[in-house]
């Protein structure tokens, strides 16, 4: 996270300062991170100063701290499969703000070293029926709590972590594509060919399960909520890249989401803005919430501005 100074102060006095963390406050004190799990091992009597999500200094018992040797981007496969302890990541996408700027898509491609034809995020032009208003809807992986994709994987190459993230291990994936059929949202993208237009230096890097790079030919990839960034206490690139502040990212345990400049209490945001999840009826329990496309002060057509002809044509697909 780049900047926390402008964030709103909400009920900071009532907050349990233990519910703070690496993500929102940059609370890393000399290689030591805070565990956000309630009920951490007992006190030692020694106090350590840390920064809260509100940017305040606070003292906590050193018994609440744990070593953060794993905060580097290179974590072991085993750790990467477990996830970041105490976290439950959540995303809120504000549809009232999306103008199809497509910066999330290119940022994601840069971040994960994806070729230009691989889009882990897509932006759909939705219109439920003729009478209802059209709107732009970014679609990431929903990191479902009941993921149909991980259920069907024959080798456990895709899995659900404790922190809520659904990841793919491209070094284990056998490329059977069953998960792509199991996912009703089409969140998964196959690496149909050897990557084009990616520097050799990147391709030569050892594969990192948390950065998802470099993507491996013949396996499945998808939006991964950038666990290597979140492990460092930073926001996923799509969130920071969005010029309209559409994406909010945060931790359900902390009940906080931020788009980098605004921070909200997650539960209040969902309550006040009538947040919902896409197709709740499918029972997949997504970790991505949408805020309805209300009170927009721009025409939906503005989303076509600046698009290439090829991109424009994608929205005229007559599929039926």
């Amino acid at each position, binding site marked *: 996270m780049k900047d926390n100074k402008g964030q709103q102060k909400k009920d900071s006095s009532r907050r349990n300062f233990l519910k703070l963390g690496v993500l929102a406050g940059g609370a890393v004190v000399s290689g030591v991170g805070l565990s956000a799990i309630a009920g951490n091992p007992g006190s030692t009597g020694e106090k350590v100063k840390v920064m809260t999500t509100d940017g305040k200094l606070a003292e906590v018992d050193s018994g609440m701290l744990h070593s953060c040797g794993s905060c580097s981007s290179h974590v072991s496969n085993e750790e990467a499969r477990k996830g970041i302890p105490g976290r439950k990541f959540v995303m809120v996408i504000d549809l009232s703000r999306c103008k199809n700027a497509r910066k999330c898509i290119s940022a994601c491609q840069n971040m994960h070293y994806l070729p230009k*034809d691989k*889009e882990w995020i*897509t*932006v*759909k*032009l*939705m219109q439920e029926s003729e009478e209802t208003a059209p709107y732009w809807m970014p*679609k990431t992986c929903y990191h479902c709590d009941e993921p*149909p994709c991980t*259920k*069907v*994987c*024959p*080798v*456990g*190459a895709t899995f659900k972590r404790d922190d809520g993230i659904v990841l793919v291990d491209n070094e*284990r*994936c*056998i*490329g*059977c*594509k*069953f998960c*792509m*059929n*199991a996912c*009703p*949202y*089409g969140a*998964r*993208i*196959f*690496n*149909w*060919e*050897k990557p084009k237009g990616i520097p050799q230096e990147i391709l030569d890097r050892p594969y990192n399960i948390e950065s998802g790079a470099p993507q491996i*030919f*013949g*396996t*499945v990839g998808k939006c991964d909520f950038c666990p290597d960034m979140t492990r460092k206490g930073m926001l996923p690139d799509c969130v920071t890249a969005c010029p309209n502040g559409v994406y909010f990212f945060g931790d359900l345990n902390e009940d906080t989401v931020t788009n980098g400049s605004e921070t909200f209490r997650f539960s209040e945001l969902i309550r006040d803005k009538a947040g919902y999840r896409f*197709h709740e009826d*499918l029972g*997949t329990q997504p970790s991505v919430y949408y805020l309805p496309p209300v009170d927009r002060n721009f025409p939906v057509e503005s989303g076509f501005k600046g698009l290439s002809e090829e*991109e424009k*044509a*994608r*929205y005229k*697909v007559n*599929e*039926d």
Partner: protein
Amino acid sequence: MEIDNKTKEVLKEFSPQLENFNRRFKILSAILIAIMLFALYAFYRQEKDGHIITGMRDNVVWGLYIANFVFFIGISYAGALISGILHLLKVEWRKPIIRIAEFITVIATIIGPLYILLCMGRLDRLFNLVLYGRIQSPIIWDVIAITTYIIGSFLFLYLAMIRDLAILRDTPGLKIGKFRRWSYKFLAIGYQGTKEQDKQLEESITIMSAIIIPIAVIVHSVLAWIFGMTLRPGWHSTIFAPYFVIAAIFSGTGVLIMAMWFYRKMFHLEKYITKKHFDYLGMLLLIMAAIYGYFTFSEYLTDWYTSETWNARVLKKMFDINQYGWWFYFSVLVGNLLPIIVIGIKKLRTINNVALVSAIAVLALWVKRYLIIVPTLETPLLPAQDTRMEWVHYSPTWVEWALTMGGVAFFIFAFMMLSKYVPIVPVSLVSKPAEKAAEVEVKPTVETV
């Protein structure tokens, strides 16, 4: 082993087919091998360049390969179910045709799973299925079921062949090579036709035919669940397992009738494979067509009547003649009704007609498999926007067609080679007197229709 005169006589009839490799055989083999080599080249290209050279893309991730997979596993039912059941019921007329049926099973069970492998992005990681296999995944169910099925059907075929292998071993006059003679000796595992051996063998075959029937049912059910366990319209259906099983018996019977027709013509087996066989198996085909039609009707009626949006979008593609309409109507109307009409009317029920409608039904069932897979995948829940337009619709490329033709060529080629190795009609069975039939007498039921 002492070979009686009756057997000698029968074997004499078949020895030309075992000994001679005539020109027609050689030319046909050359053509089939050429097709298979081309398929091999396509496979090499696919492994080298990736699946990008197939027609599959991010929406339609399974295509022709999976359709072929379901199809071949389907026709493998010929041996497993039909031959298994007929053996258990001790139906006398089964004798000349069971080997054809068992050949179909074994060959199709080998070819089918190859198509799953073709669909895998990383064949080199196949061993991960063993290293990291998760029993929760329907693919692992499939791996277990199909492996069991392959072993089971091999055993079933082999046990039923031992008597003939022993006969071939002990027939000195055959003009065959040294190695082949040795292989008969090896494979006959010392069968001498003693009373005890005979009893053991008979019991083994009976046990195997009882085992192979549930295995076959499980295999196709698990296969159906690969589709049924996903949140996709047209797949997520509770009747999918029985629907697939019926489709499999239907197509298996069809292919069996076709193979009978070919062998009858090519090897002049009119004495063994008679009108009766076509009548009886035609009746089975008719019954399967009726049940299959009933399932199809039930499946599409319920989907269509409620017309839930996502379902309705798939159905619209099926019914629309500008999209998959013609294929759909061909597969469900022609492929289903034609066998019922032609076989149902006694006047039309000639050998050639039964074989013809079988071929049409088999083709229709292949089309149906394609229609189960592709239109569903072309209809994602979210609008298929913001993906590359050319990625929305599926059409197979030369690679997929080459490998499909390669599979068919392999099927025919393996059949030709196997029928050169052992007589296509079980010599030991047809030369034996009739067994005591089981309780069920099939004949009168059929005559009255």
